[in-house]
């Protein structure tokens, strides 16, 4: 935990050391320590207001942290350490850091003025300057992978929630990320549409994608997750193999939460 310890690009994709975040006087994160290894699926659960979504948004620097350190693939997120001092990264440098991290939102956030295909092609073409023809090819492959190749020409407003979320996953994958963040990806869906999204995520996990998933789907956490992290009050209360945490929680707070959701 020395100042200079910048974990090299080893097997650890995400390294969080004592991450703090507060809005004014409200402390949302009060020291999160967490590591996610390459190919690991880390499910984060906890009651609402526990700070799990905020922590997820800190990973790709959508939120600035107030204290602690956060590395992704060995890069300190949002800052450069020079001569024992932290320097804020410029907006373009932060953008460059985010290119390697895919994110899927609770409310999909597809671009409504673009077709499904254009949504998936947008970032590769505009950000990575990929040629349109090859971007289209990749996009069609990804849409096929999420089972929506036939919807390529539709606008997002015409799709069901489950379909929109699958397009959002394809859009994030189009940047070929080394890490995928999921922020309650099924919470805004009608119950009968949850399965199709979880299936796509399970496929991703099987292909070896490193994933951090904030979720309320305990079944998914148990079956697909490699680690389960239980957060409450801005700290990690308990973490471990999902079956053990779910089956035999050691902390009273974990027990109380699980008794309500299981």
């Amino acid at each position, binding site marked *: 935990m020395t100042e200079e310890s910048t974990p090299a690009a080893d097997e650890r994709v995400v390294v969080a050391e004592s991450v703090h975040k507060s809005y004014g006087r409200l402390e949302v994160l009060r020291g999160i320590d967490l590591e996610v290894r390459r190919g690991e699926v880390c499910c984060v659960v906890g009651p609402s207001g526990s700070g799990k979504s905020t922590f997820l948004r800190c990973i790709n620097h959508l939120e600035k942290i107030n204290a602690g350190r956060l590395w992704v693939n060995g890069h300190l997120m949002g800052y450069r350490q020079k001569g024992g001092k932290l320097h804020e990264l410029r907006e373009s440098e932060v953008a460059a850091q985010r290119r390697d991290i895919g994110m899927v939102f609770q409310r999909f956030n597809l671009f409504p003025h673009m077709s499904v295909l254009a949504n998936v092609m947008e*970032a590769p073409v505009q950000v990575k300057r990929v040629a349109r023809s090859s971007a289209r090819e990749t996009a069609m492959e990804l849409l096929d992978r999420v089972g929506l190749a036939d919807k390529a020409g539709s606008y997002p407003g015409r799709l069901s929630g489950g379909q929109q979320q699958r397009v959002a996953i394809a859009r994030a994958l189009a940047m070929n990320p080394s890490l995928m963040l999921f922020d309650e990806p099924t919470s805004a869906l009608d119950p009968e549409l949850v399965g199709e999204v979880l299936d796509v995520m399970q496929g991703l996990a099987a292909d070896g994608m490193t994933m951090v998933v904030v979720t309320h789907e305990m079944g998914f956490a148990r079956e697909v997750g490699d680690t389960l992290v239980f957060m409450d009050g801005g700290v990690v209360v308990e973490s471990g193999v999902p079956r053990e945490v779910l089956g035999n929680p050691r902390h009273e707070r974990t027990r109380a939460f699980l008794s309500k959701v299981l």
Partner: protein
Amino acid sequence: MSSENENLRAAGPPRPGAPEAIRAVPVRYPGRWVAAALILLLAAMFVHMLITNEAFNWPFMVANMFTEPVLIGVRTTLVLTVLAMLIGIVLGVVVAVMRLSGNPVLSFVGWLYTWFFRAVPRLVLCVLFGNLGVLYSRVELGLPFDNYWMPLLGLSGDARFLSFDTRDILTAFVAALLALALSEGAYMAEIVRAGLQSVDPGQTEAAQALGMRRSTLLRRITLPQALRVIVPPTGNETTAMLKDTSLVAYVPLTTELWFQLQAIGNRTFDPFPMLVAACIWYLSITSVFMLGQYFLERSFTKGDRQAQAEVTMTQVRAKN
């Protein structure tokens, strides 16, 4: 019992003994008829006045409203409208982005600009810009405050590279264009700001998460979505601008439509027909503008309509 019966009815085939369609006596509205008759009567009186009142002097009006100076005036009015709107829109986007920026100086200057140009009437601005020559007899480009710091450094002469006579640059047309465009920029800034703020913040987050830079984000994601809110009021602004070009007669810009029509009226001591001619000219041009606005707005909701058409198509397919 009712729900079960309804289910049976809905499921079963239409029964042969369907009830006869209702043919009721409609409710009468005598008040509406009286009002309509009264309005028709008033309209007839108005048309009668238009035809019989000598003051309209229709042949004189028709003979004078298409003369060359008037047509040049129409052209100036159109050119002014288009240029002032183009500059105004560009200024509006810049000022709106300034106002939404995190830098307090930029956002304050943006606010100050909109405050000033929305608070001062366009007529006053037109006269003011017509008299700007009073401030500077020459317009010069160079390093600022050279008359202070050059002597301090022991240098003689000045640090100016280009110099123009104000009368050459600030012609009546330029003064008029500046007054209208700067004023329009302030209104457009508010419209653009409302448009940008109408876009869901989740859109910005999604684009940021994809690694987009702020400039790309504005150009590709925020502005295109804001346009649906921005375009309709911009159409109204264009129509308003066309009418407000009549104010530049007081810069004074003499090649403009309203000035020319008035001039004819004053010269012939028969002003009224030319006032009517002005009404007809502005009515015709704004009507064409409004038609254009209609088609523009229709094309901007294309994404929606395409989605709508798709819905209809699926419904049709589902039925077949």
